[in-house]
């Protein structure tokens, strides 16, 4: 037992030099790649489309979203994104940006929200929402997250989100915390923000929605978390389901004070 421990310790000491040098090169190379991609984020294409869609008369009622209340009053877009999720009196619910957009599309434009909920990501009205969230998030770019916790339901959403974050299950025994529960870790070469605290400006919650390089699509937080649950080997979380909104409350409130850079560019 002691022999094994000793040899392991010696091995770690010998290893760290070589491993560190190699790690640094790979990390540097990846940093270089990301720097080359930093400007000219294709998310801009979605932002432009989203702004257009917001102002367009659409849906069965042929109405725009100009009167949509994202939390700061009808039609106020600037600064709304960094205060979501929040509690809304008219629906009596804590809503994130996407569930709130569904409410507006239903009440103002006459769309059937339940139909959109079952529309596959990246198609139909789901792609409308993807462009809308890109634009709405961009209107708060550079602002600090300031997600409210004053309403009791907002506190409950946070507490449920926290428990969902640590909920281990499924064939791999994973929870969100398996990957995002400690600082300084990676999966393959991708850095994993520690989402149990505030990972800093433009990191984690403060980076989404984002343009996903791997699929060439714009992903909102709903889709990001949907794919987390897929990788977690969980069953399928419904679009705008309560667990996703609760997790957003938890991660968002933890990130309060950090600058939002969304829509960012992600792997």
């Amino acid at each position, binding site marked *: 037992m002691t022999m094994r421990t000793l040899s392991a310790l010696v091995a770690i000491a010998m290893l760290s030099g070589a491993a560190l040098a190699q790690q640094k090169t790979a990390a540097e190379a990846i940093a270089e790649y990301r720097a080359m991609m930093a400007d000219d984020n294709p998310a801009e294409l979605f932002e432009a489309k989203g702004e257009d869609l917001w102002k367009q008369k659409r849906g069965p009622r042929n109405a725009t979203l100009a009167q949509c209340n994202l939390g700061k009053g009808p039609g106020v877009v600037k600064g709304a994104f960094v205060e979501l999720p929040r509690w809304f009196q008219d629906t009596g619910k804590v809503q994130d940006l996407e569930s709130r957009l569904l409410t507006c599309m239903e009440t103002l434009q006459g769309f059937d929200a339940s139909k959109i909920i079952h529309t596959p990501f990246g198609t139909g009205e789901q792609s409308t929402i993807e462009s809308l969230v890109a634009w709405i998030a961009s209107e708060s770019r550079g602002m600090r997250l300031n997600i409210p916790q004053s309403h009791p339901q907002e506190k409950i959403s946070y507490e*449920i989100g926290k428990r969902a974050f640590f909920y281990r299950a499924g064939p791999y025994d994973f929870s969100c915390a398996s990957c995002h529960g400690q600082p300084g870790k990676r999966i393959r070469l991708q850095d994993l923000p520690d989402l149990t605290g505030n990972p800093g400006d433009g990191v984690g919650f403060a980076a989404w929605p984002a343009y996903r390089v791997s699929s060439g699509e714009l992903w909102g937080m709903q889709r990001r978390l949907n794919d987390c649950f897929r990788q977690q080997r969980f*069953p399928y979380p419904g679009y705008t389901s309560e667990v996703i909104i609760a997790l957003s409350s938890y991660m968002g409130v933890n990130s309060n004070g950090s600058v939002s850079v969304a829509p960012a560019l992600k792997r």
Partner: protein
Amino acid sequence: MNQSKMLMWACAALLVSSCASHTSAPDYDQMLQQVLGTSFRSEGIAKLERLHQDEANAACSRAQGGKLPDAEAEAIQQAALHSVRMPADGKFLGDWREGEKLAQNGRGMTWSDPSERPSDNGGNCLNCHQVTREEVAYGTIGPSLYHYGKNRGVVDPDSPLSRPIIEYTWTKIYNPKSYNACSDMPRFGHAGLLDETQLKHLMALLLDPKSPVNQ
């Protein structure tokens, strides 16, 4: 839809009895169960039953990343240790080449995968561990496994001297909770993620002196 409702009621019923002692503060754990029950649906091979926790996962979830009380951790580890089945033929090492393929393969068990059969699953090792010197795209959630066998003095895996480390490694892959109640690592043998042959290939990757892990 029906299934999710059923699960919700089942969870609610369970919780009413188990949580009867808590009264004052809102019962967030019960609320979570209700939220899980209404939020998820079965998709492909990823059925709603996957939300069910065994005792170990429930205890580690409650701890929220903190340490479990010693007695609770010990009980989980003992139970895990007892779940481990050593290879039927007494041979622990397969082919490290196959092991390396499994280590690279991060697929398996998602709702977009074709089946839950071990043949459709990868070992996912590189997601969390360094394995060889050549592969730079490795994760760091787990410790580096580079020189795993070499560092532990495994010269001849068949030698009785190697036996303790061989059995330890098999146990660790089969059910990592044997040594760490809240280990982040999946229980590859216990959960039926990989079959015995695949486990042997991973063993060879780590312990065969010819494996790139030990170069």
